[in-house]
């Protein structure tokens, strides 16, 4: 009866063979992943050093903060809000850590705790104004951008404060290596990556078994295996490369844990569902029993927390705090989310997408630096990529729904 309304991609593809459908589906769903692969290939052709062990290691060390920010920013954006203050919060939390550790001589963990505490306070402050008072996040965080930048400058007395050294420095510059030895490469890195790959495969297999038990459609077995093999090959190749440099960066482990945890929060928990529900339709979410204020509040608190983590990571990487640290980082994080397929009006966006978006930003910045492009060219290219990536996503989505 619903002739016009029921037209959809599934109906059209019903006739095509399973594998073909899977491929077409994957291309559509993973457009942004394809874009990432293309970017990587382009840079590795333009600059062969791009895939070298030392550069891949640097890539991880240098851009971890963007990915950490993007995780929190994605949640804020799906909620149909925005947080412009995170760059300033990076400066402020880095300053706090430096004041505690460098100026005060306290141990590294005191600096970390102080920075995280300040980040949470920032989140509480902004969450209060957004969730309880009801001021749009754009305005609150625009104010926050000024407030926290100013506080960072006051705290540092307009000068940079360094060096951290020691464990704090190792957060972003340290490596776990040599534990199992190895002939010119780090066996430990390979072991960890192998465990991760096996864990990933097992988790995927379990989820597939669950789907079969519930009689859902699953991806055809060859495609499923192919996907696992591709993931394993890429991950192990990456591990092989970095094991030939300095081994497993500590920051990579931290990053992996954060991505995993936030992926689960957004994908698998009620809290994550509620964020999507609020972004999709605020009134409907409220009338479905979603505690809109509560969810909004904690999303902003979480953003403050993650900005502090990024602040720690960045100040550790720089081995010091600068009043101008983190300038413009909020835009990198926001761009990562939008490149990764988040909707500007909320309700749509995935952690995985934001991570890939962040990686695309990182690869482009790093690649251009390797090629020695001038300072002016780099932002131009980044801006173009952002625009084109979102345009591509839009086109891809229209094509997939271009029916009724």
């Amino acid at each position, binding site marked *: 009866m619903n*002739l016009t309304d029921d037209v959809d991609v599934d109906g059209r593809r019903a006739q095509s063979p399973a594998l073909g459908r899977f491929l077409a589906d994957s291309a559509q769903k993973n457009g942004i992943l394809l874009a990432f692969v293309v970017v990587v290939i382009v840079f590795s052709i333009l600059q062969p050093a791009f895939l070298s062990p030392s550069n891949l290691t640097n890539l991880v060390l240098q851009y971890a903060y963007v990915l950490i920010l993007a995780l929190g920013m994605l949640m804020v954006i799906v909620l149909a809000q925005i947080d412009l203050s995170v760059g300033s919060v990076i400066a402020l939390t880095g300053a706090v850590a430096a004041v505690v550790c460098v100026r005060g001589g306290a141990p590294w963990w005191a600096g970390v705790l102080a920075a995280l505490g300040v980040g949470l306070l920032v989140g509480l402050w902004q969450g209060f104004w957004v969730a309880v008072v009801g001021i749009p996040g754009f305005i609150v965080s625009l104010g926050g951008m000024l407030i926290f930048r100013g506080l960072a400058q006051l705290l540092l007395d307009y000068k940079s404060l360094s060096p951290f050294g020691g464990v704090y420095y190792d957060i972003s510059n340290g490596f776990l290596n040599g534990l199992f030895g190895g002939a010119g490469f780090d066996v430990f890195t390979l072991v960890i990556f192998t465990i991760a790959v096996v864990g990933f495969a097992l988790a995927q297999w379990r989820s597939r078994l669950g789907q079969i038990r519930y009689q859902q459609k699953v991806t055809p077995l060859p495609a499923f295996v192919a996907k696992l093999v591709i993931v394993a090959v890429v991950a192990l190749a990456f591990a092989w490369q970095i094991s030939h440099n300095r081994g497993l960066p500590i920051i990579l482990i931290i990053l992996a844990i954060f991505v995993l945890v936030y992926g689960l929060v957004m994908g698998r928990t009620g809290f994550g569902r509620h964020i999507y529900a609020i972004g999709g339709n605020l009134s409907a979410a409220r009338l479905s029993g979603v505690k809109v204020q509560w969810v909004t509040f904690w999303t902003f608190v979480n953003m403050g927390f993650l900005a502090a983590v990024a602040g720690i990571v960045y100040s550790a990487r720089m081995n010091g705090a600068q009043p101008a640290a983190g300038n413009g980082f909020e835009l990198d994080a926001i761009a990562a989310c939008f490149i990764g397929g988040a909707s500007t009006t909320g309700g749509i966006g995935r952690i995985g997408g934001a991570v890939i978006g962040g990686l695309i930003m990182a690869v482009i910045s790093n690649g251009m630096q390797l090629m020695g492009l001038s300072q002016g060219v780099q932002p131009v290219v980044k801006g173009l990529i952002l625009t084109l990536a979102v345009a591509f996503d839009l086109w891809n989505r229209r094509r997939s729904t271009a029916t009724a």
Partner: protein
Amino acid sequence: MTDTILEMSSITKKFPGVVALEDVNLTVKRGEIHAICGENGAGKSTLMKILSGVHPHGTYSGQIVYDGEEAVFRSIGDSERHGIVIIHQELALSPYLSIAENIFLGNERYDKLGLINWNRTNAEAAELMRRVGLDENPMTPVGVIGVGKQQLVEIAKALSKSVRLLILDEPTAALNDTDSEHLLGLLRMLKADGVTCIMISHKLGELIEIADSITVIRDGHTIETIPDSQATQERLIRGMVGRDLSQRYPPREHDIGPEVFRVEDWTVYHPTQPGRVMLDHVSLTVRAGEVVGIAGLMGAGRTELAMSLFGHSYGSHISGHTYIRGQEVHLRTVSDAIYQKVAYVSEDRKRYGLNLLADIKTNISAAGLRQLESPVTGWVNQNEEMKVAEKYRSTLNIKAPSVLMGVSKLSGGNQQKVVLGKWLYTEPEILILDEPTRGIDVGAKYEIYTLINEMVSRGRAVIVISSELPEVMGISDRIYTLSFGRITGEVPIAQATQEKLMELMTKEEEVVS
């Protein structure tokens, strides 16, 4: 010049995988009001989209002869230049612009310098507004006038484009009886002026009253075109659903148990205008296995009553008492209400009921998500979620190939079933349905009535709010009338007549001595 203004013949429109229209013919005589009826998804809107150039020439097969010439419309602009104007069900007005600005939007009145000539704009707007009987200042923002008047602005806008063939998609769906009457009167007047009208509507009584001929479409085919003199509701329904709906309301066993829900002295003030009483000492009861109707005109406080009861979702300074099975309960938040097994299905499913960005599955689990969360990890069991969604898809007969399909692609009736599924999954004892069949077709209406019967047969209590009196009378056991925020009557179904209810629904506040 011929007697026929429009002849669409052998129109076939295919979407990938589906034939939306097959060999459809439509002949419209000059100066008539021609109604099109059919279930949601039958292809009415697609046909009108082809006529107005939304689906451009070449994307369909068949021929359109308009005013004696073959019509080749590649865009809405093309069809508008030929005097064909379509007014969509969801009005396309900009709320912050004035009536005059909206009327001439995209069609502005300029002076010699290329700037907007406001005197001319407002004067011409006033003239058009007089023609459609809209008594407002042309400079009033559209957002502050009611839906009925907004509809008139749309018609004035159409008139400003020298309309000769006006297409109205469900023009009265959101209007109350007075506004509907006015609108229908206006269509008759336009007809006298020589404007031809094509009107899509679900309100069969209204169609028979106003139309000169009625074309019935079902499953992408034209079933028949009936001259008004031969049209009866039964014949139209038979044509639309392909079977006799001997009764429009499914029969039900009446097995009424003890009181489940009681409201006493429920008083609610306007959320932003202090001192404005929206509901005044409302008291009512609902018993197990009972359907209680609440009849009231627009603005009587029906939705305000439902939403304020449902977790104080409307209003301020709420006072009064609510009891469930004799125990006083405080439903201060929606979560409280859900916990107490109260469910509320809103009148506006797109605005208050659905996450249109999400799929059927996610919408169905939205209110009862807690049942899917693991008590240990807090993770949502997605496999179980699929199973639940599948269950409601089959029991509610939601027509979709998969529960992973986006709800925005569903027809109105199926969207409404998704919202119902969402609330049934919370396993409510008390179900408040606000206009549960608004904008959905006869077949889906019947299914929803059947569902209501099923609910009460399991001992649940149902409150139905509706502005259609036949509907309230068709499904309720007992009816409360609401007027100006007060309960003005309580009528057992056996004593209910439309006249009596209408009298109570229009009863003004008694003068307090």
